[in-house]
C-alpha cells in the first residue's frame, strides 16, 4: 500500500488529536435507572446476606455484602461450625463468576452446525426466549419419551436437591438413572468407604481433636473436600502440639504444611498405609474388633517398612520416624484420597488409608473419621429412582449410541472427562444437547441449546449429599442460604428448568411439581429427623437455618458407619504402574493436581484467580508444568521456558499440550506435575484458550475396580518448545531461587525460641538413599 505524505500527516495529526482531545470529549450521557419499587434498604447501605458458598462441595458458611442489589464482597460466616469464618480464594472469586462479562444471561440457540472445528464460541449461537427454548427442548423430550425414554440422559454435578429433582424427572419420564459428574477421586473414596465403613459417602475427618494426622494423597489444604474447614482444624491441632505427616508425590500446599513430607512415588500411598498398619498391628495397638475388620479387608500380611520404603522410594528413616510418632500418638487419624485415589491402584490405596482408622479405633469418635451422609435427597424427593451413575456410564451409553436427548446442568463433562473417552465426538452424535450453565463451558460449546443458569449467589442453596461434619458439635452440618442477589438477565435455577420441563410434559407417571427449590427442600428435610423433629417443623427449621446459614443435626455422635455392610477384601495395593523397565525411555510420569487457582476448572473465568500467582509455582494466566532441576537440565529448559507434553507410548498422532515450565526444587525427578482445570475452549474472555487441559493427555487408564480414570498413570515425553507462544507470566522470582534470606527467614534457622526446630524439622536424609521416580531419564 503506498503511503502518501498526506496520510502520514493525517496519522500523526490523529494521534496528537486523540491524545489531546481525549480529555475534552463529551461523554455519552448516562441515564441512571431509578428503581420503581421502594426497597426497604436505603440506597448505598450495606446489606449482609447470610448464605452458603456453592463453589465446591464443602459448602462453607458465608455472608455476602450487597449494596443496591449488587454483590460486593464475600466474607466467612464466623458462626458457621465448620468453616468458622474462613473463605478460600475460589470462594471469594464467586463474585467474578457472578459478574463475568461473558456470562450466559439468556437462552442461546445454536445457529451453525455442530462439528469439530466448526464455528465455536458465542458466535455459533443466537439469543432466544425461554418459551422457545422450553418448547423446543420439551418437545424433543416428549418425542424421545414416546419413542424410547431410555434415550434420554441427564448429567449434573449437583448431588443435592437439584440432582434429586433431575432424578425425579428422569424417573417420571422412564429414563435411565441420572449421571453424576462428581470429582473422580471422590468416586473412588466413596467406593472405598462403602467397603471399609459400609457407607458409600466420602468420610469426614475431625482433624482438630486428633493429635496426629496422617495424610495419604489427600491435599486437604489445597482443594480437597473441605479445604477451609480442614485448614482451620489442622491449625488448631498443631497449635496444641499435634503432628502432621503427609504422603504425596508432589509437594502440595498440604505437603508443605506437614511436619514431615513423605514424597512417595505416585500410586504407592497404599503400600505405605499397609506398612504402617503392620506397625500398629505388631505393636498390639489396635482393638480386636478393629483388627478383625481390618484383616477382613486386607487379609494378606502387611509389608514391612523396608519394603514400603523401597516401593514408595522414600528414605526408610523417614518411615521409621513416622511409625514412632504414630505409636506415640493417642488419637491419630488417617486421611486418604486425592492423588492416592487416581492411580490404577487407587481404590485399594485409599481403602488402605481409610482402614487405618479402624486400627486406630477412631471411627465415629471425636478426633477421628465420620461416615455420615446428609439429607438423603434422592430417597426423599425421588423415591424409587436409581442411584446416580458415574460419568463413565454416560460414555458407555454414548458409545452405544443410546442417547437422543442429553441434558447437562451444573456440570462440564466435556472439560473434565479424559480426552481418550472422546466425549466431544460422541456428544456431537447426539441429536439434541442442552447445557444449562452460567458460562460457555466446553460442554455448552457442543450444545444445541445453552440455557442460562443462576450461579449459587443467585440461588437458594443447601448442602448436597456430603454434608460438612462439625468438629465440635458432632452431627452433620447442613449449610443453607437464600439468594444473595437477583439473578442476572434471565438466568434460572437448573432445577427449576427441570420443573418447567416436567410441567410441559403430559401425564407423567409421577408428578414433579414443587413450587420451587425451597419447597422441595422443605419436603425432603421434613423426613429427616436428625434435623427436624417433625415434617411440620420443616419450614420453620429451614427459615431459621437460612437466617443462620446452617442447620446442625441433633444426632449426638458422628456415625461409625455400618460394619455389617461391605467388608469385601481389597486386592493388596502394590504400587502399580511404575514398572520402570517397561516404560518408554525418557518419559516422565504425569502428576495432575487441583490448584487453588482453577479448582476443577470453574475458577478459570475469574481474573482474580487467573492473576493469582500459584503459591508454589507462581504462574499467572496460564497453566504450567513443574519439573525437577535434573529433568529440566536434561530437557534443556529453565523456569519461564515452554515445553510440549506428548503422551508416551502412543502413536504418532498422540495428544500434545503446550505449557510454560517452572523448575521446582521440590519436584520429584522423573515426574512432571501440572494443574487441572485450565485450557477451556471458551468459558468467557478470561478463560478462553488459557493454559492447557491436562485431561487431553489422559487416555483409557482406569482405576481398578472403579469407574474413574487413573490420571496419575499417564507418562509423557517432555520437550522444549523452540518458539514459545508468549511470555510466561511468572510472579517475581519463581520457585526455589532464594539468593539471600533476610534474618529469621531460613527454614533451618532457629529464630527466637529454643523449641523452634521441632515444628518445622529439617527433613534431611542420608544422601543417596532416595532415588528418583522411574529413574528413566
Amino acid at each position, binding site marked *: 500500500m503506498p503511503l502518501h505524505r498526506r496520510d502520514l500527516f493525517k496519522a500523526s495529526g490523529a494521534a496528537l488529536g486523540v491524545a489531546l482531545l481525549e480529555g475534552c470529549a463529551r461523554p455519552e450521557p448516562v441515564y441512571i435507572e431509578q428503581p420503581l419499587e421502594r426497597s426497604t434498604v436505603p440506597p448505598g447501605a450495606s446489606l449482609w446476606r447470610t448464605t452458603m458458598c456453592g463453589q465446591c462441595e464443602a459448602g462453607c458458611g458465608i455472608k455476602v455484602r450487597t449494596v443496591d442489589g449488587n*454483590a*460486593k*464482597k464475600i*466474607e*466467612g460466616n464466623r458462626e458457621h461450625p465448620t*468453616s468458622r469464618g474462613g473463605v478460600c*480464594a475460589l470462594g*471469594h472469586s464467586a*463474585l467474578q463468576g*457472578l*459478574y463475568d*462479562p461473558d456470562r450466559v444471561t439468556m437462552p442461546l440457540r445454536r445457529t451453525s452446525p455442530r462439528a469439530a472445528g466448526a464455528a465455536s464460541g458465542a458466535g455459533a449461537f443466537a439469543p432466544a426466549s425461554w418459551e422457545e427454548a422450553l418448547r423446543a427442548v420439551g418437545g424433543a423430550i416428549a418425542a424421545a419419551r414416546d419413542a424410547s425414554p431410555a434415550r434420554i440422559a441427564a448429567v449434573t454435578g449437583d448431588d443435592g436437591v437439584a440432582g434429586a429433582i433431575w432424578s425425579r424427572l428422569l424417573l417420571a419420564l422412564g429414563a435411565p438413572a441420572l449421571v453424576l459428574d462428581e470429582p473422580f477421586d471422590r468416586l473412588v473414596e466413596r467406593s472405598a468407604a462403602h467397603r471399609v465403613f459400609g457407607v458409600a459417602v466420602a468420610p469426614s475427618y475431625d482433624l482438630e481433636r486428633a*493429635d*496426629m494426622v496422617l495424610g495419604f494423597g489427600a491435599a486437604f489444604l489445597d482443594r480437597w473436600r473441605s479445604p477451609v474447614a480442614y*485448614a*482451620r482444624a489442622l*491449625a488448631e491441632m*498443631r497449635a*496444641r*502440639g499435634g*503432628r502432621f505427616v503427609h504422603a504425596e508425590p508432589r509437594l502440595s*500446599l498440604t505437603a*508443605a504444611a506437614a*511436619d514431615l513430607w513423605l*514424597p512417595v512415588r505416585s500410586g504407592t500411598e497404599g503400600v505405605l498405609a499397609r506398612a504402617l498398619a503392620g506397625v500398629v498391628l505388631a505393636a498390639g495397638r489396635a482393638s480386636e474388633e478393629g483388627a478383625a475388620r481390618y484383616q477382613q479387608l486386607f487379609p494378606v500380611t502387611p509389608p514391612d517398612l523396608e519394603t514400603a520404603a523401597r516401593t514408595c522410594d522414600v528414605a526408610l528413616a523417614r518411615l521409621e520416624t513416622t511409625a514412632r510418632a504414630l505409636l506415640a500418638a493417642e488419637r491419630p487419624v488417617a486421611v486418604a484420597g486425592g492423588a492416592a485415589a487416581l492411580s490404577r491402584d487407587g481404590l485399594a490405596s485409599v481403602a488402605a488409608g481409610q482402614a487405618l482408622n479402624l486400627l486406630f479405633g477412631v471411627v465415629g469418635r471425636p478426633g477421628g473419621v465420620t461416615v455420615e451422609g446428609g439429607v438423603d435427597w434422592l430417597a426423599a424427593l425421588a423415591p424409587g429412582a436409581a442411584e446416580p451413575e458415574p460419568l463413565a456410564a454416560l460414555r458407555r451409553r454414548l458409545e452405544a449410541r443410546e442417547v437422543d436427548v442429553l441434558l447437562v446442568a451444573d456440570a462440564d463433562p466435556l472439560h473434565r472427562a479424559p480426552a481418550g473417552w472422546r466425549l466431544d465426538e460422541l456428544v456431537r452424535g447426539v441429536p439434541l444437547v442442552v447445557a444449562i450453565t452460567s458460562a460457555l463451558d466446553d460442554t455448552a460449546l457442543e450444545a444445541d441449546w445453552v440455557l442460562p443458569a443462576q450461579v449459587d449467589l443467585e440461588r437458594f442453596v443447601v448442602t448436597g449429599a456430603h454434608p460438612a461434619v462439625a468438629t465440635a458439635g458432632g452431627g452433620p452440618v447442613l449449610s443453607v442460604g437464600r439468594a444473595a442477589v437477583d439473578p442476572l438477565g434471565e438466568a434460572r435455577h437448573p432445577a427449576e428448568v427441570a420443573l418447567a420441563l416436567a410441567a410441559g410434559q403430559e401425564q407423567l407417571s409421577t408428578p414433579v411439581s414443587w413450587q420451587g427449590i425451597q419447597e422441595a427442600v422443605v419436603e425432603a428435610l421434613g423426613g429427616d429427623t436428625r434435623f427436624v423433629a417433625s415434617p411440620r417443623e420443616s419450614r420453620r427449621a429451614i427459615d431459621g437455618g437460612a437466617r443462620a446459614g446452617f442447620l446442625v443435626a441433633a444426632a449426638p455422635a458422628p456415625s461409625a458407619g455400618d460394619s455389617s455392610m461391605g467388608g469385601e477384601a481389597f486386592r493388596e495395593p502394590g504400587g502399580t504402574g511404575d514398572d520402570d523397565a517397561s516404560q518408554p525411555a525418557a518419559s516422565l510420569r504425569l502428576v495432575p493436581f487441583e490448584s*487453588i487457582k482453577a479448582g476443577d476448572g470453574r475458577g478459570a473465568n475469574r*481474573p482474580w484467580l*487467573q*492473576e493469582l*500467582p500459584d*503459591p*508454589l509455582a*507462581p504462574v*499467572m494466566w*496460564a497453566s504450567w508444568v513443574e519439573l525437577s532441576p535434573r529433568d529440566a537440565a536434561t530437557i534443556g529448559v529453565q523456569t519461564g521456558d515452554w515445553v510440549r507434553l506428548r503422551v508416551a507410548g502412543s502413536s504418532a498422532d498422540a495428544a500434545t499440550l503446550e505449557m510454560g515450565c517452572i523448575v521446582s*526444587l*521440590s*519436584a*520429584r525427578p522423573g515426574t512432571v506435575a501440572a494443574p487441572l482445570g485450565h485450557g477451556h475452549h471458551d468459558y468467557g474472555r478470561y478463560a478462553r484458550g488459557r493454559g492447557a487441559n491436562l485431561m487431553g493427555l489422559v487416555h483409557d487408564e482406569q482405576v481398578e475396580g472403579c469407574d474413574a480414570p487413573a490420571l496419575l498413570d499417564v507418562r509423557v515425553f517432555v520437550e522444549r518448545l523452540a518458539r514459545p507462544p*508468549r*511470555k510466561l*507470566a511468572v*510472579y517475581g522470582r519463581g*520457585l526455589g531461587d532464594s539468593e539471600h534470606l533476610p*534474618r*529469621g*527467614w531460613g*527454614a533451618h*534457622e532457629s*529464630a*527466637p525460641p*529454643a*523449641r523452634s*526446630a*521441632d515444628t*518445622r*524439622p*529439617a*527433613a*534431611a536424609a542420608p544422601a543417596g538413599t532416595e532415588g528418583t521416580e522411574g529413574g528413566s531419564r
Partner: protein
Amino acid sequence: MTRWGMVIDTDRCTGCEACVVACSAENNVPTVGEDDAAMGRAMHWLRIERVVEGEFPDTRVRFVPVLCQHCGAAPCEPVCPVYATYHNDEGLNAMVYSRCVGTRFCANNCPYTVRTFNWRKPAWPEPLDRQLNPDVSVRPAGVMEKCTFCVQRIHDARHEADADERELRDGDVSPACAQSCPTQAIAFGDLADPESRVSRLARSRRAFQLLDDLGTAPGVVYRRGGLDLEETVMGELPLPGAADD
C-alpha cells in the same frame, strides 16, 4: 492513642492465598492481564512470599504473607514530593490517591516492595464493575497504591462504635485478609493497647519483624518457628533429621 498493627503467624499460614483474593475484592485492586502480569505489574496489595530451601526430597517451604508494614519510620514517606503518602496519627501509612503525581519514588524506597503502581487505567468490563466496593476509591492510571490496613473498615467500625456511644473494642476491626484467612493466621488490632490480642501475640518469643534491622519500625509482627505450649499432647516427636542421621 491507637497504633494499628497486625500479627501474622507463619506457622499457621498454609499459603492458600485466600487473603490475597479477599484483599483485591475489598479494595478494588485491579487485575492487569497476562502481558502486564508477565512484566511484573500485577497489583496485589498482599503477596505470599515463598521461602524454599533444599532440593527434593528435603525441600522445606515456608509462606510469609507480605503487605505494607505500616512502618513507624516509613522510608516511603519523606521521599514523596507532594505528601501523597503520609503517616496518620493512628500509625497508618496512608495514601492520598488524588494527590499522587506518580513519581514512584516511594516504591523505590520501600524496602518491602509492597507498593504497586497503576501502569494503565484499570478496567472492570461490565458487569464486573458491579462488584466494586463503594467505600474504596478506584485509582486512576499513574497513581501509586498499596495496602491501607483496610482503613475504610476502621472508619466503619468507629462510626458504629460512635453510633452505639462506646469506645472501639479489640476485635471490632478486621481487615479483609484477616477476616477470610481459613487458619486465622492474621490478627489485627491496636498495638498501643497492651491488653489487645495483637499485643499479646506480639509479645511471644516467636515474634519477629521483617527487616527490622533497617529501623523501619514495622507495624506488622510475624510469628514463627515453635510452639507456645510447653507440653505437647503426645510428647516428643523424634526429630526426623536426627533419626535420619
